[in-house]
């Protein structure tokens, strides 16, 4: 069942910039969905529209079955948002700002729940501290606490790991998994493949305002997890030797570079075997390097596939 349903959503800003182009996307209830894309791909615009901060130019969005514009009360009360920027009131205390968020979202006072959220995020002993006295990581925790204060069914985390240390990232991912266990749907944006890989059930790739692909993580990672081995040959070759045909090798740079693509996820990558064969055939090389395809390369490849 879809908890968020986006149909033909487009957004053109007043400046004429087309941030989103005809987006169609279904988010399933109870999943962790990662929206992966480079900076400026439209991730934040998409989230901002669903949350009611930016007006769509055309298209329709349902959150929890409610239209985000005509039934905005029902839709928004289900949603919690942790923004990318660390926007907090400098002079408020942690306790008052989190209680404010709960009230703002129409929920009656519940100090026990707010305390639980603050304890979960290791903020309880900072509850009387003013926000301006907190570090960036602590402010991030406060923003998460504010979003969770009103018990949302859908949680958006916009670039949650920006400026976050290892410890907080680990805590955050643990919390995200716990929330998923309790039935909360989580949508996070990131421009790190590793991050999407670590936490998500499904991944959508967005680039230039368009959703390029939406896949189960395992399937996508197979596509994205390619590595390349480049061998700089001492003497150029005119063609790949016939008995190395099975490796799907490519000759590049006027025959001076032999390129082997392999799946880094597989136990048997075939590198050792290939090198042994080259040695036997007296094919000598000056240098070698292996590299994972970069996000940009992946995007180029995904766009090409379309």
């Amino acid at each position, binding site marked *: 069942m879809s908890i968020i349903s986006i149909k033909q959503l487009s957004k053109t800003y007043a400046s004429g910039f087309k941030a989103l182009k005809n987006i169609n996307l279904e988010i399933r209830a109870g999943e962790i969905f990662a929206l992966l894309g480079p900076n400026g791909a439209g991730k934040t615009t998409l989230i901002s529209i669903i*949350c009611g901060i*930016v007006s769509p130019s055309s298209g329709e969005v349902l959150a929890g079955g409610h239209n985000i514009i005509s039934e*905005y009360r029902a839709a928004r009360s289900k949603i919690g948002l942790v923004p990318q920027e660390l*926007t907090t009131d400098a002079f408020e205390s942690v306790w008052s700002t989190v209680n404010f968020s709960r009230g703002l979202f*129409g929920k009656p006072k519940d100090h026990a729940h707010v305390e639980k959220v603050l304890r979960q995020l290791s903020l309880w002993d900072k509850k009387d501290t003013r926000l301006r006295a907190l570090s960036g990581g602590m402010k991030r925790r406060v923003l998460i606490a*504010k979003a969770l204060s009103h018990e949302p069914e859908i949680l958006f985390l916009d670039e949650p790991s920006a400026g976050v240390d290892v410890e907080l990232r680990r805590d955050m991912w643990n919390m995200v998994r716990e929330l998923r266990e309790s039935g909360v749907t989580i949508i996070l944006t990131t421009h790190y493949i590793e991050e999407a890989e670590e936490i998500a059930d499904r991944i959508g790739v967005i680039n230039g305002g368009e959703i390029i692909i939406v896949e189960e993580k395992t399937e996508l990672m197979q596509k994205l997890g390619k590595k390349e081995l480049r061998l700089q040959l001492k003497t150029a070759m005119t063609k790949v030797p016939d008995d190395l045909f099975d490796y799907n090798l490519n000759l590049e740079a006027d025959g001076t570079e032999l390129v082997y693509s392999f799946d880094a996820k597989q136990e048997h990558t075939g590198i050792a075997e290939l090198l042994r064969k080259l040695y036997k055939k007296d094919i000598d090389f000056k240098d070698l390097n292996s590299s994972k395809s970069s996000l940009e390369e992946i995007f180029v490849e995904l766009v090409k596939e379309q």
Partner: protein
Amino acid sequence: MNFNSISAIYSFEVARAWRTIGQTIAAPVVSTCLYFIVFGTAIGSRMGSIEGVSYAAFIIPGLVMMSLLTQSISNASFGIFFPRFSGTIFEVLSAPISYFEILLGYVGAAASKSLIVGLLILITARLFVDYNIQHPFWMITFLILTAVTFSLFGFILGIVANGFDQLQVVPLMIITPLAFLGGTFYSIDMLPPFWQTVTLFNPVVYLVSGFRWSFYGISDVSILTSVSMISLFLVGCVLIVWQIFATGYRLKD
């Protein structure tokens, strides 16, 4: 109506005033009292009464009005400008509340704060000057109507403003001069005929005149004109706010 949300915004704004009580409440009360001491008791004792009212008592309604105007505008404009400036407005925009409820929270809180300041000034004035209130109902009506109207005006200013300097300019450079020239310290009858006509274009004249009438039964313009003018200004502000919300101007892209 989402009362939890309105109350959250309202309490947040009132708490902010409480935290900065020296600036939001004590400062306007103290500075207005200086006027009572200097113009009322010191200089006023050497001046004749105006239409049977001592000079010290004559200036009280105008001074209360002046404070009410500047406080309403600065409270409301700061209340909405600051979240816009710091970015925390995202939370208000993403909350399940209507624009009307947002307005009730921010403008209600700003109007309450300036009403408290106005009442405190009236109470403090009693320590220095003897005055009476002939029409308490109208006195309260004028106070509330003015506080709400100019808080709405402040809200508009807070949305339109591009920086803190612009927030300061309107109360200091526009409202204070208008209040000084709007009959706070003199009766319009005292002016030459030409300036009497010019003064009628000053909206503050109608506020001060109507408010003074509720105290002493004397006014520069008829009470009906005063009420109509302030109501007209209120409707104007409501229409502008409605337009801002309908288009999302400066709030939503």
